[in-house]
């Protein structure tokens, strides 16, 4: 009897009352906030976002054309959740974790609606190797075993929200993600798959302060404005200034072990580019195709906005899951502004009271909740893992005073300010060195000291000072021309130019220059500093700025970044530079 009542309750269907774009209203529906519901005869997926008296308001993840009032709505009683388990890596999903490759098989080249597809393959068998044995006590989040997923080892864990227990039996061998691989003494059974609601952060034992940089191979980032593993960064900029290229560079070259890349309301071709390029690129560390450590989420600008809203949550949940295995994960979200706009669009359809520029009043809260899911943590199973989050921001008109940029800057620790003036003159990456900042410098000081050079931190400050100084001098130059400057300052202008053109400029499309390790970064900056010291001392003994500028070795330095085995060439250049200056000094 109990079964029938339960059955009857499940049978109770709501009825659609109103459809206006992606937001629909149902009545007679038992629902809780964020329940996933099936809308209309085609059972389009939606999520409850507001309950008002009898009315339940639902955002629908697919196009609602053709749906009529009176059609049924049913509640699954579940929240929007992702499937977590082997098979995530190399996948490309839409905002609600439907694999796009499966969608092509099911409905062809264009995305139609009403098709569901699970996030993971439920048929594929994975070789599971147990790491616990019968009689072992297991805590929530414990690692039960592992699967060689790609070149990455996938740790299979007990879900985080369960009671501790004792292992009764643990399997070994080939299983699908649904087959039971672990049974506990109290009878609880676990397969490899777990599901997690995307809007809820996965729990950790402890959050720690980051101390290690995420090495990106991008000189202006690692060298001047580093982000820590487990840190947060924002990269705002007008259109065409280099947000996507920078994010893709980070996805390619940063020394994270797992990369989650979210294309949120951006271009289809950009996702295709990642899909075509990554399988052919090698991870500089492991030598394996970059795709093997990557999960892509592509909810492009022309895909439904409600699914765009969900896409960042889907992404960060997957990132947290890999973090829980003890990996360093980095997540790029391009662009968080499109996510914010999706929130705005839904909010305005709900006729909520708009806040600044029409964004909902909870914009700031949503942004900070999202970035708070980044961090260096001690996981439930005691491992160290991290999620670094890098969000692109697309301010209207390139004006940083707008709400999304401002609310983001209040939360993140690193600010890479893109500048249209730089991108227009093809100074790439077009990151403005005067406006950008990193609040991790202090925390990473020791790392650079030990791992790069005891001199590094000083050299960095020196370069920043020169750049600052140049900005001041440029104001004078604009009025009187550079010849009117004192000679030592003319040298400074030239040194600053070298820092900009040699060190800061980095071509993402050059096979060699696209990635520059810390050792080379140090060597390059050190060479520029050596030039600067030689110049200042030559100038003191009366060598003219024109003569100093004519030093040939200086021009050769610019070529270093395009050379893979640069050490012999660099040594040659430095030797030549020394000789040239000696000649100049003795002539003076």
């Amino acid at each position, binding site marked *: 009897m109990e079964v029938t009542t339960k059955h009857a309750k499940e049978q109770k269907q709501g009825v659609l*009352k109103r*459809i206006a774009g992606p937001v629909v209203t149902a009545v007679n529906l038992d629902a809780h906030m964020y329940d996933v519901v099936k809308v209309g005869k085609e059972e389009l997926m939606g999520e409850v976002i507001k309950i008002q008296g009898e009315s339940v308001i639902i955002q629908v993840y697919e196009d609602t054309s*053709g749906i009529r009032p009176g059609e049924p709505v049913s509640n699954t009683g579940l929240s929007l959740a992702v499937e977590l388990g082997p098979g995530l890596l190399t996948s490309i999903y839409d905002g609600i974790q439907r694999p796009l*490759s499966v969608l092509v098989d099911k409905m062809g080249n264009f995305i139609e609606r009403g098709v569901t597809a699970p996030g993971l393959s439920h048929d594929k068998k994975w070789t599971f190797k147990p790491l616990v044995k019968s009689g072992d006590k297991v805590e929530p989040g414990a690692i039960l075993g592992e699967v060689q997923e790609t070149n990455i080892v996938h740790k299979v864990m007990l879900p985080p929200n369960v009671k501790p227990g004792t292992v009764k039996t643990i399997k070994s061998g080939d299983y699908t993600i649904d087959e039971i691989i672990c049974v506990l003494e109290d009878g609880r059974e676990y397969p490899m798959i777990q599901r997690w609601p995307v809007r809820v952060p996965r729990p950790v034992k402890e959050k720690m302060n980051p101390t290690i940089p995420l090495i990106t191979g991008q000189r202006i980032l690692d060298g001047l404005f580093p982000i820590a593993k487990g840190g947060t960064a924002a990269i705002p900029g007008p259109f065409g200034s280099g947000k996507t290229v920078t994010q893709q560079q980070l996805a390619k070259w940063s020394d994270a072990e797992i990369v989650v890349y979210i294309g949120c309301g951006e271009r289809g071709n950009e996702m295709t580019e990642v899909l075509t390029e990554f399988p052919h690129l090698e991870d500089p560390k492991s030598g394996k195709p970059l795709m093997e450590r990557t999960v892509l989420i592509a909810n492009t*600008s022309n895909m439904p906005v409600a699914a765009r809203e969900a896409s960042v949550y889907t992404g960060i949940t997957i990132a947290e899951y890999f973090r829980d295995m003890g990996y360093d994960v980095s997540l790029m979200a391009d662009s968080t502004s*499109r996510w914010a706009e999706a929130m705005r669009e839904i909010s305005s359809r709900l006729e909520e009271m708009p806040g600044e520029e029409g964004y909902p009043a909870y914009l700031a809260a949503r942004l900070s909740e999202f970035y708070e899911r980044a961090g260096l943590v001690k996981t439930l199973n005691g491992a160290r893992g991290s999620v670094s989050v890098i969000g692109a921001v*697309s301010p209207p*008109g390139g004006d940083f005073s707008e709400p999304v940029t401002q609310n983001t800057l209040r939360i993140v620790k690193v600010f890479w300010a893109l500048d*249209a003036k730089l991108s227009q003159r*093809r100074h790439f990456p077009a990151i403005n060195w005067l406006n950008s900042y990193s609040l991790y410098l202090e925390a990473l000081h020791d790392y650079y000291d030990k791992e790069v050079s005891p001199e590094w931190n000083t050299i960095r400050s020196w370069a920043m000072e020169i750049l600052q100084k140049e900005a001041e001098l440029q104001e004078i130059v604009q009025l009187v021309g550079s010849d009117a400057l004192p000679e030592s300052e003319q040298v400074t202008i030239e040194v600053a130019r070298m820092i900009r053109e040699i060190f800061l400029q980095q071509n993402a499309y050059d096979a060699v220059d696209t990635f520059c390790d810390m050792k080379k970064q140090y060597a390059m900056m050190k060479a520029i500093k050596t030039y600067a010291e030689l110049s200042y001392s030559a100038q003191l003994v009366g060598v003219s700025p024109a003569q100093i500028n004519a030093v040939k070795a200086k021009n050769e330095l610019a070529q270093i970044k395009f050379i893979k085995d640069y050490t012999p060439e660099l040594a040659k250049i430095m030797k030549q530079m020394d000789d040239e200056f000696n000649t100049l000094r003795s002539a003076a």
Partner: protein
Amino acid sequence: MKEYRTISKIAGPLVFVEKTEPIAYGELVNIILADGTTKRGQVLDTSDELVVVQIFETTAGIGRDSGVRFTGETIKMPVGREMLGRILSGGGKPIDGGPDIVPEKRLDINGAAINPYARGMPADFIQTGISTIDGTNTLVRGQKLPIFSGAGLPHNNVALQIARQAKVPGSTEKFAVVFAAMGITKEEANYFMQDFERTGALERAVVFLNLADDPAVERIITPRLALTTAEYLAFELGMHVLVILTDMTNYCEALRQIGAAREEVPGRRGYPGYMYTDLANLYERAGMIKGQKGSVTQIPILTMPGDDITHPIADLTGYITEGQIVVNRDLHRKGIYPPINVLPSLSRLMNLGIGKGKTREDHKKVSDQMYAGYAEGNDLRGLVAIVGKDALSERDRLLLEFADLFESRFVRQGYDEDRSIEDTLNLAWDLLATLPVEQLTRIDRELINKYHPKFRTGAKKE
């Protein structure tokens, strides 16, 4: 089909209908006037009590006594091979005196998103014969590359020159052209039509005309009809299609008008908050599909109000398209055609279409160096105005001259001048050769030795 006479309110382009049976969201609606004429619209909001219909034409003549018929389907258009060579209204009806289109298919005009997994990567270089495009802002097949212009600038000439000269070197396939006019004047439209006729392009063109005196709201569907046609030609018939949409500014005005009529909370400068998504739904309909022959390349044209690139129309477009070609008033005043300012211009897909085996190995770096030189030279113009030429260093003086040469020789070309990519790159090297070799820091030695006029004499002889 049931006809309702329950219109309760008419406001702007919106008609409110009461007491209907359940009506589908997005459904096509016919409104029948007393004199028997029909107007079309679409359901924007539907509920038990009230259905809101957006009319695509003027609401003149619609009254509470007008009849309303819901067709039960979303807006579809008939498409067929025979559309090539035809001229249709902005609402898709033939206006060239020819017969109706015999439909081979009827397609939903809103299209569907190409699955990113199914997209093919654009990679084919399109030679437009214009140096500032081919050399420094290369167009590739499947790209969406708008022209940002201002009132009174020769953007139409540029668009026509592209349409006329565009070819993929080494390929014999011709582009089919789909041309959609939104709110442009009859005179402008004639200009396009005459050029199409003069060059014989009309035979392989489909033209949609919504002119300035046609209903503004019709502009909402004109580009959708054009893109549906383009997708049909490309993905069903395997053609390479070039779509010209002009003027997107008028389209956005129509969008704003509807938003206002719906009493929506307006976004920046009164444009609706969803304009980004709406425009993306048009622009993203460019591209290629893996394993298929055809392609849709888009050249939308927009006039920036007040020449302001941060205006929402240009801004949102720039955020969606794969670059932009910026037509500039100062260059136009200097008498330079085509007055394309390369500095704010960009082609994001350039790298996919250029380089060894496509254009030439030196292409990318030459382009970067040209930019760097022009940008720096251009900046110096401001300084010279203050301190005079004499205060410049030798380095700066050469850069200043380079900027002038860049404009007078690289940018400037004839309306019918069709430069090959070889010509464009060689011209670029000639200009770069006016600068000291050491200053060419963007180009590696190897390429300099091979292509720099100073060194390439040997190579030339062979």
